[in-house]
């Protein structure tokens, strides 16, 4: 592990205090984790090509320009990049100071979407602005993490105590409750996973962790009994448990997963070649470009391509984990650990459902899936991680 010598540290501190010297080692922008950035950019570019391949034929069939989706994806990526640079520039510390307002804004947005959101598939997930739509649940992901990490780092001494744990649950509970009402179990699970990561690293006792797990399960059961979560989400779980079922009621979900698995398995080692995947071209997998992008990658580029993507995610996770370890303060550690958990969970959940390991949920695959909200939300997460890394020596 690189340990800066005392002289270097002194130089950097000097540099940081002397703002005129922008190129010094103490300049935060000299300390960007380029490996992490590179992996994220690579994944984003793969995502654009993948979005094109997974949407081209179905757009042609419908008589549209085959580039519509990928053009929008590029636009989203540019916005996301700008947001990431902004976060990196202003730093997570600055955000921490205003976290209460940001958290409040997200809660308001989550409330508003329940009232004024566009209904799609029986759920109110997003605001529709015509050319694009915004999912407040995506914004909630980084914000809830930041809020809890900020609260804990401010109040905690040593290990997290019961009071802080309960406070954390309150902070978590408000947005989760609203998200479950949409209902968006997937996003809720991501946020819970991220917060669980924060609490775990914060030293939460095992019984706290057991408690949060039990509460999560009870919440899910409660939403099901309360009728908030419809039969559709249950059917997804039922379909997951009986993947070879011929039940026509589960047909849509079963076929979606079955074709996704077939796409992966027929890819072989080298894949069918770019734009040559029959199942991808044939639009056999509904919402492939948002929910099952990995199936398109694996069909076209085989185990090799799938392996590269998994490897890049591995790099992202590894660097995030490393940044958590290098973090200068408690806030950086907790935030990075939460982001690490959140990303790991999303990656596992999304690729897992493509491979039939986990039930189907509407979670996007970070950086790869088509969609602006999740791209921006992921960019915020990476921006905060980079910010922790950049400022670890201050």
């Amino acid at each position, binding site marked *: 592990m690189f340990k800066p010598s005392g002289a270097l540290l002194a130089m950097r501190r000097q540099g940081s205090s002397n703002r005129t010297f922008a190129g010094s080692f103490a300049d935060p922008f000299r300390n960007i984790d380029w490996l992490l950035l590179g992996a994220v950019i690579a994944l984003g570019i793969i995502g654009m090509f993948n979005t094109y391949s997974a949407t081209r034929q179905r757009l042609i069939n419908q008589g549209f320009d085959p580039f519509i989706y990928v053009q929008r994806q590029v636009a989203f990526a540019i916005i996301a990049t700008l947001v990431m640079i902004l976060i990196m520039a202003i730093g997570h510390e600055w955000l921490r100071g205003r976290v209460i307002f940001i958290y409040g804004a997200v809660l308001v947005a989550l409330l508003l979407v329940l009232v004024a959101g566009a209904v799609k598939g029986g759920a109110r997930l997003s605001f529709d602005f015509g050319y694009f739509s915004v999912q407040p649940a995506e914004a909630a992901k980084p914000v809830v993490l930041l809020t809890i990490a900020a609260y804990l780092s401010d109040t905690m001494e040593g290990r997290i105590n019961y009071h802080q744990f309960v406070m954390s649950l309150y902070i978590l509970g408000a947005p989760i409750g609203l998200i479950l009402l949409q209902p968006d179990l997937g996003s809720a699970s991501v946020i819970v996973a991220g917060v669980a990561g924060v609490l775990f690293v914060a030293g939460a006792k095992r019984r706290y962790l057991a408690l949060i797990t039990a509460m999560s399960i009870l919440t899910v059961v409660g939403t099901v009994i309360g009728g908030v979560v419809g039969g559709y989400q249950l059917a997804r779980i039922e379909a997951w448990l009986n993947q070879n079922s011929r039940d026509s009621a589960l047909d849509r979900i079963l076929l979606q997963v079955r074709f996704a698995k077939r796409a992966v398995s027929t890819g072989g080692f080298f894949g069918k070649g770019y734009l040559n995947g029959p199942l991808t071209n044939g639009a*056999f997998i509904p919402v492939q470009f948002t929910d099952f992008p990995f199936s398109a990658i694996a069909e076209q580029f085989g185990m090799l391509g799938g392996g590269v993507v998994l490897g890049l995610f591995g790099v992202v*996770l590894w660097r995030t984990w490393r940044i958590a370890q290098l973090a200068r303060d408690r806030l950086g550690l907790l935030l990075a650990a939460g982001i*690490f958990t959140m990303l790991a969970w999303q990656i596992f959940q999304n690729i897992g459902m493509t491979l039939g390991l986990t039930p189907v949920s509407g979670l996007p695959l970070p950086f790869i899936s088509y969609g602006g909200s999740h791209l921006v939300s992921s960019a915020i997460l990476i921006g905060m991680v980079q910010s922790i890394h950049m400022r670890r020596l201050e």
Partner: protein
Amino acid sequence: MATPTRSKRLVALGVTALLLMSLLTVRMWVLQAVEAESTESIVLAVRTRTIKLLGERGRIFDVTGRVLAANKRILTVTIDRSVISDPVDRLAMFQRLSGPLGLPLDLLYKRFDDQRFGPLEALPLKEDVSEDTALFLAERTEDFPGVFVREEYRRNYPYGALGSHIVGYLGAILPNNLAYYRSVGYDPNERVGQYGVEQSYETILRGKPGYIRFEVDAQGNVLRILERVEPVIGNDLQLSIDLSIQQFAEQALETQLGLRRRVEAATVNLPDGTPDPQYPEITYYKAPAGSVVLLNQENGQIVAMASYPRFDNRWFGSVITNNKYAQIFPQTDDPDLSILVNRAVSGRYNLGSSFKPFVAYAALNTGQLPGGSKYTFRDEGTYKLESIPNDRCQQGVKCVFRNATCRATNQPCRYGTVTVEEALAVSSDSFFYKIGEQILTERGYQAILEQQVRLFGFGSPTNVDLPYEYSGTIPSKALKRRMADLGAISKESGQAYFVGDQILFAIGQGLLSATPLQVASAFAVLANSGKLFQPHVVQRILSPGTPDASPGVADLNIGSVTERFDQLKPVRILDMSGDRRDPIVKGLTRVITGPGVTFGYYHKTTGENLFRGYPYKILPIAGKTGTAQGFGNLPWNDSSAFGAFSLDPAMPYAAYAYLEKSGYGSQAAAPVIKCLFTALAGEYRLDPVVPADPLNLNSAVAAPPSSLRNPLCLAGLGSESRD
């Protein structure tokens, strides 16, 4: 910064993530490497659709190349089933299509429910739409999604009723044939040959279908064409039928039947000579049906084959209602009326005296007649069985068989001492009664006669290349038992084969039955000195795509021959050496030319009167009359038969005509054969063969009448006895 606990926890978190990522990697590897093979084929099956392409059906020509069956290109409007799978969409689409297609909604729905059209293929909504309609729909694809106009071929028979019993027609696959056609790669909605050559050469005419394989998406939308295999056009057929002679044969047959219907049959008299009051005094011959076969002695190739009633095979390609169909082709139990029967190959006929030449051969070949051609027999008009004791005859067993009645004496004709040649010339029944009895009783009751006539092909199918052939029956113990079991004859009668059965057999009556084609083929064996051929109406199977020499006539000199049937080896060769054939041919020649025999007075041969005007010098022929007794042995139920063959090796023809319920052999059938050979001799100017008028859908008959322009060749006197 990190405390040990945190550090440990961070490591635990990292390890968990590492495990999850590893799990994904392993799972991906399992799917791609281990399960890949099992899923590949499923994927392929799911994502492709195949559409069959049918090639143009092979054409059918007559021997000179006249096109008897051709194809017309038509446009058919089809609709993709996925577009109308939803009932609401279906109604909307059908409502929109009803106008342009000119079809009421219920007909469209009927099409939709028709099981013949497979669920995976586009549904044909209307065939043979105009170019305008096709263009209208093609220009408005966005208003008619899934609607597609495709090219198809429709069978076209330029000559209509002429030769339709041979050419046949196409129809939908019948439910009981579906399994067979499926097994040889047909789709249930294909049209297949259902009659004639169209049926017997179905798979050859059809060619090999091609296909287009599409890649489709989950909604069934076509993405791209994966493979296109062009269909192979079917083989063309050149028939051995000469359409000009075929036309003449059909005209002669129909004209003669028409003439016979105006002739009064003899009255039925009581034994004292007064008319039997039980029957009307005047009954006209019914002459409902008949057939003529003309074939080449030397190879079994059929030159003409007429069957009446005729029908126009274009009825089966036209859109007519069930009621109209029932009017044209009425359902009937009366065999006289059935139209869709080629009587030349399916007729079940008694042959009467026209069978005698073959009985004569049996006797000569087996040495039954001592001295052969010199053997004589004294014909006293009646024949008393020698093998039955007198006392049994007095107990009621029929022992005395009579000759036909001579008009001059109103008594059974008496011909005096006759040789086999003379017996054939004047058609002496007694002579053949004797042969019939003795060939049985003197040979230990063996089935010698049956074995001998089987050599000529009687009792088994000729295997002609036409469907629905009847194999004929030969009286025997086994046949009688079978018929008794079927209830056709009484139980007592079915117990044994009696001498009486053999007597009737010997003069072509009783349980003997054969088709006109079988008899014509048997006469050809006598003509060509013993060679039995498998008859064919097809001369050559030609490679696909024979070009036309001129409109409506194929150029038979171009293109290669796949298979030919005019150079086949005989199925069997009969011994015609020594004294076997000559007396028969001489006797049959005397039937045409005379002289007859003198006993008391001069008895003309059965054909002598009729053939007086025949150009024998140009085309010498031999023949034999026959009158088959019908129901109740009533005069108007007599069916008329005549077989003949050419004696000129340059014109090797053999012919047989059979006119149902039309009178004596010399009165109805012989004139038709006489006309036929007169025409073959070049002494009759044949009508030119011209394509038929378009089918008149308002017509109430299956085929328009067709008659000889000049029926004089039919004229001539019959014989004086029921021959």
